[in-house]
């Protein structure tokens, strides 16, 4: 009975991996490389997933920063360094200007900001609240209006 096309006398080239068995050291090194790659991937990738950071900047100076999705209860921040006193309220997943002494009240009327890319601006106070984190779900580069 013929079981194959190659005679028993034909020299067989064996795969390299079979020429020498992997050692424990190889396994440890492989594991190390995989762990390094994973650490780099998660450490250096753009912010995504659950992270939603609110940065509050008054006339070019950062006054506070919140990870909105890490909040478990509402937080209020009084900002008195501008031309008009104001109170900013952050709660899990969103932020707004609760009160402002500015005459136009445009910042209060803006309401809640809850998406990466959102901004709340108080022109009289020169204050900007910017949200960043999860990739903004937009397919455009700017907005006119």
């Amino acid at each position, binding site marked *: 009975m013929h079981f194959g096309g190659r005679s028993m006398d034909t020299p067989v080239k064996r795969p*390299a991996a079979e020429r*020498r068995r992997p050692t424990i050291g*190889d396994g440890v*090194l*492989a594991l190390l*490389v995989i762990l*390094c*790659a994973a650490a*780099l*991937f998660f450490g*250096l*990738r753009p912010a995504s997933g659950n992270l939603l950071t609110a940065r509050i900047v008054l*006339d*070019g100076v950062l006054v506070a920063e919140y990870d909105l999705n890490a909040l478990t209860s509402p937080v209020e921040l009084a900002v008195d360094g501008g031309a008009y006193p104001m109170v900013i309220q952050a709660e899990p997943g969103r932020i707004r200007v609760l009160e402002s002494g*500015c*005459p*136009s009240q*445009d910042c209060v009327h803006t309401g809640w900001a809850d998406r990466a890319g959102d901004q709340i*601006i108080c*022109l*009289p106070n*020169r204050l*900007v609240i910017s949200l960043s984190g999860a990739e903004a779900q*937009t*397919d*455009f*580069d*700017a*907005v*006119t*209006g």
Partner: protein
Amino acid sequence: MKRLFPLFLALSLSLSACGAPTVGDVGASEQFFAMDTIMTVNVLDENGEAAVQAARAEIDRLEQMLSRTREDSVIALLNTHAGDGSALAVEPELGALLRFAQSVSQDLPGCFDITIAPVMDAWGFTREERHVPDPDTLADTLALVDWRALTVAEDDASARLEEPGMAVDLGAVAKGFAAQRAADAIRAAGGTSALLDLGGNITVLGSKPDGADWRVAVKDPQDTERQLGVVSLRDKTLSTSGGYERYFEANGITYHHILDPETGYPADSGLLSVTVVSSDPLLADALSTALFVAGRQAALDYWRSRDDFELILCGSDGVVTVTEGLTFAFRGEEHGYTCETARR
């Protein structure tokens, strides 16, 4: 050692993937307050930092010249000397800007007038103390609005307001002028791919770094979280005027900041917003205000008389009119809008 090679290769690839160049690696961006709004300048090539700083310096210089609320600005001086017979020496670039504004007033009678400042003051839009003026005050201030009583010398080197109490406000052209000059500064600094957002007035230079067109969304005037659609373009400015930008409510009525120079009241032409797209940032800025006051039919008639701008008109009737020269992806259908294309 040979058998370790694939492992080192894997590590190298991991590192190179994490450090892959992005737009941010070669560009620069700055956000700042100027001209009573917030501005962002992005330059996305290797000359980014120098180009952004050149643009900002130019905008700061122009604000110093054009803002009438700065006591030492040339425009504040022009207003202070209104009616005293003296001609104020101005930079020729400012003289040309004043003359340009007058040309828009001449082309669109009753729709645009930079001498509307006294009426804006009466409404409190200048000092952010917004209120409805009493009829006598409104009539008195409206009598001071007349672009023909602004005299600009033939050589653009001097200007004068003929009547006491007159005043110029360049809010309808300053951002466009700044965009024009800032774009020039970016090009002079070697910038080739840039996006300027001067308080919602968007100017794009060149294409995106990957060679694609820029994509600029147009806000839905009835819900600024939504978009009417997206325009694809390069080397253009989009300027939008709408009553939703600055307004106040009194006795249940909403009053916005775009005033009709004929009546002194907020313009009520049936348009909720006007977006003008042009290669000329100054023209786009001025026309967005003028055509908001003019209304849909007059705006389209004017568009048909020229070939240097395109329009997106959003009416209170729910109709979005887009002129045929634009590549516009309409998105307002699900929010109750219909879209029509205007042809020449």
